[in-house]
Every structure is written in structure tokens, then in C-alpha cells.
């Protein structure tokens, strides 16, 4: 987590300084990919500048993280692996939900599919190997765990994580004015909801009448 914080701090510094020649940057767990235009800045010159910023990144204060609340329904068909995961972990279903929803997660970066967050923050008891056989199709909005990670699938895609529940929010909506919900560095909390509230929020999301709670 410390390295990732430095990655995001370096990213922030590059953006703040508007380093000439930098086109865009892509943070990941412990690396930052910097796209640049060699007709504007040379490789060695850019490396020198980035090294200096990387030093600064150890003590840089970033703006406060956004806190995003994701409603999550763990009931029935929305959490198809909930019982199996609980059994595998030696927990009751209630305890698994309580531990998962009680944690605060950090978004390390967004990757794999548009808007999909790579997060950690769940208590150790929830560490679980990926599925032996990945699913071919995971519904978007699925809230899932695997290894020490938690992710929320953003589009229908293959997936190897245990599906504990589903959020009615769209992590990626190509038709929306702002298609991407989560950003690197966000803090995420899941709010447990029942099926009725899930359906109600989903309807409002469809109608464009729901705004995620973001502090």
C-alpha cells in the first residue's frame, strides 16, 4: 500500500507540475507508466525530472481521498458464491457479509475493463484463492473477492473471483456524461442493502435519477 501511495503521489505531482511532453500516465500497483512525446522532451531529461519528482513523492501530501459508498446486495442470486465462499473460509454467511461490508477499501488503480477497481482492505479472514474454474460471464456490478483483493466487475467479462453480492450502480456507463465512477486513490465502503432497495436503486440508475454518495 505504501508503494502504491507513492505511485499515486508521483502521478499527482506530474499532473500538478504539468511536466512538458507528458501525454498521459497510468498508475498500477507499484508502477507508473508515463506516455511522452519525444519531440518535446528527451528520454534522459524526462527520466531525470521524474526521478526528482519520485523523491518528492515520498513526502507529498495529496488532496484528501474521495469516499465512495457502493450499495451492495448480498442476497440470493446476486451473491451466487456467498455460501460457498463462507464455507471455504470457515465463516458463517452473516460473518462473511459483516466482515466484507465493514471494511474500508482503497482503490489502487483502475484496470482490466473500463472503470474496474483493483482494491484491498478486507480483513485477513477473507483471503481466498481464485476460483479453480473462472466463470465465462460475470454480470457487471458483481462485487467479488479473490486473493487479498476485492473488485467490482464493470462490464460483463470472464472472471475468477468469488461473487459475494452485486451493486446496482454502474462502475462504467458509456452513455453517461461521466462514464467512469471510481478513480485511483478513492476509498470505497459497501453499504448492505436488501433486494427491494437494490431493485429500487437500479430503476433510478436506469432513469438517470440516482447519484452515488461521494464525500
Amino acid at each position, binding site marked *: 500500500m505504501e508503494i502504491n501511495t507513492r505511485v499515486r503521489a508521483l502521478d499527482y505531482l506530474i499532473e500538478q507540475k504539468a511536466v512538458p511532453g507528458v501525454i498521459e500516465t497510468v498508475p498500477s500497483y507499484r508502477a507508473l507508466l508515463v506516455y511522452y512525446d519525444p519531440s518535446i522532451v528527451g528520454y534522459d531529461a524526462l527520466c531525470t525530472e521524474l526521478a526528482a519528482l519520485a523523491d518528492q513523492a515520498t513526502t507529498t501530501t495529496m488532496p484528501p481521498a474521495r469516499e465512495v459508498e457502493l450499495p451492495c446486495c448480498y442476497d440470493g442470486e446476486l451473491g451466487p458464491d456467498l455460501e460457498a465462499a463462507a464455507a471455504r473460509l470457515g465463516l458463517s454467511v452473516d460473518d462473511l457479509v459483516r466482515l466484507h461490508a465493514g471494511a474500508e477499501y482503497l482503490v489502487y488503480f483502475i484496470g482490466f475493463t*473500463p472503470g474496474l477497481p483493483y482494491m484491498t482492505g478486507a480483513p485477513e479472514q477473507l483471503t481466498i484463492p481464485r476460483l479453480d474454474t473462472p466463470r465465462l460471464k460475470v454480470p457487471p456490478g458483481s462485487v467479488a473477492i479473490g486473493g487479498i483483493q476485492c473488485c467490482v466487475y464493470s462490464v460483463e467479462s470472464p472472471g475468477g473471483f468469488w461473487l459475494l453480492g452485486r451493486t446496482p450502480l454502474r462502475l462504467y456507463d458509456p452513455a453517461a456524461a461521466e462514464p467512469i465512477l471510481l478513480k485511483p486513490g478513492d476509498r470505497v465502503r459497501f453499504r448492505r442493502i436488501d433486494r427491494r432497495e437494490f431493485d429500487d436503486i437500479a430503476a433510478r440508475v436506469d432513469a438517470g435519477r440516482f447519484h452515488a454518495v461521494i464525500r
Partner: protein
Amino acid sequence: MIRVVDPGPQTTVQDGGRVGQLRYAIPPSGPVDRPSFVLANRLVGNPDGAAALEFTLIGPRLAAEAPCAIAVTGADVPVLVNDAPAAALTTLVLEAGDIVRIGAARAGVRGYIAVGGGLEVPPVLGSRATYLRGRLGGMHGRALARNDRLPIGTAPVPRARTVASTARPRWGGELELRVVLGPQADRFTDEGVATFLSSAYEVLPQSDRMGARLKGARVAHARGHDIISDGIALGAVQVPGDGQPIVLLVDRQSTGGYTKIAAVCSFDIPRLAQAKPGQRVRFSAVDVATAHRLLEESDAALAGVDLEEIAS
């Protein structure tokens, strides 16, 4: 407006590309063969990055609803206007009602059709490029379909020009692709790197805008093929456990967990973009300084492409 009579197997709206969204796992998209795309736009008097069409292997059939100028570049394709042969790599002026038919590529894979004034589909996240997997941009996030109508910007009729024969690309044959080694070249054995740099790899039919899949001598890993996921640049060469390289392209995933032995230099991506399945490529390593020099030369060559005036 331009009406789509027959879309062809995969024709999409592409502009210069969507910048700044890789951090949200949205790739830049845009043309796989950028110089051909740029030439098409220049031939119709558009800015280099104006939205145009990219077609794959077989072109579309289009109907002009109003007078407009078009140009076809990239893959070597037959062009017919109202069933009469017309020239590729040349400004063509169409009247209302004219039908353009672009046939199957004799060489090359991707072709470009630019229209004077540019295609004015609504931009999404700052670009008109289509990201198919994300259903984003272009014509409602998808490939063109029959009866689509493409809005065109207004523009004066451009000077009619053609690409001089000396400047016309020739596709086919075995390609040499320059690469810069890394970022995980140290995850391969010396033998693996040597194999990668000395073998011919065949382009597979599963190749697409996301990546060119290759088949050939296995590239050996030193200690496994997994890394902690990091960013994937244009041209990055991933080598998964099967030792078969994949060159990542404009619709690539932004990050990934497979070792990357090298990156194909950007100026060699266009020729790879035009490599048909069965065609072979070889990799040769250059240092960063050489890569930059070659990039500068390539940019200068594109800037200096000879466009000859023709009588219109």
C-alpha cells in the same frame, strides 16, 4: 450525410484517438495504421486527426446524400464510384446520389476512408474514436450497420490531389519490426531473448485491434510469466506461458500481468497493422536513442509525402 448501404465486416469511425483515459482502462483506439489515416484526411483537406472510417479486409458501400470529397488509403483495395473504377490514394469528388463501393483488400488489412469536413458523430470523452469492447464512441459504440447515416462537417471542396507513386506503400512480405527491449526483458533467459530476436513469427488470424497474435519459436522465461500488473504501452510484446508473443495495439488492455519482453517502436506499428494472417515478422532490437532518431525520420517522411495536384 453519407448513408451506409453495406457496412463491410468491420468498419468503425476513428479519429486521432482518445487521450487521457488509459488510467480508467479505456484505451486510445484510433487508427491502427496512423500514417494511412492521416494521408486520407490530407487528401480531402481535413486536419490530420479528423474522424474518418477504418475498414477491415473488405470495405463498405456508401451513398453520398450531398456533394462531398472522399479519399481511400491503406490496404490495396478496388474502388468503384457508380460501378466505374476510381483511384485510391486520390481525392475523389462525389455528387449527391453517387455510390462508392470498396472491395476486398489485395494486400494489407486496414483501409481508411476520409470525407472532406470530417465525420461529425458526437464525441465521447473528447474523441470520436470507437472502442468496440467498451461500446464507446464513434457510431453508438459499435461498428457501422446498414442504413447508418454519418453526419459530415461542412468544408470547401479541396484541391484534387493524389499520392505520388514513389510515396505509395507496398504491403506484404516479411517485416522487420524494430523493438526496444523491456520492461521485463530480465524475466527471460538469454536464450529466450536470442530466440525472440532471431526467429520469424507468423501473424495469426485471431489478431485484431487489441493485439497481433504471433506463432513461432517459443520464447523461454527465466522464472515464470506472471508479474504484478503494470501498464501496457502501444506495441508492448507480452509473452504468456506458452512462449508465443502478442503485440498489443490501439484497443489494448491498459494494464496486465504477463511479462513484456520488448515494445515495437511506434513507427513500425503501421506495417504490422497491415500484415495479413500468414505473413511473417522478425524483431530487431534498437536502443532508445536510435528509436527516437528513427521516429523523427518517420515523422518527417509522413510530413513530406508528395501529394501531386491532378486536374479535377
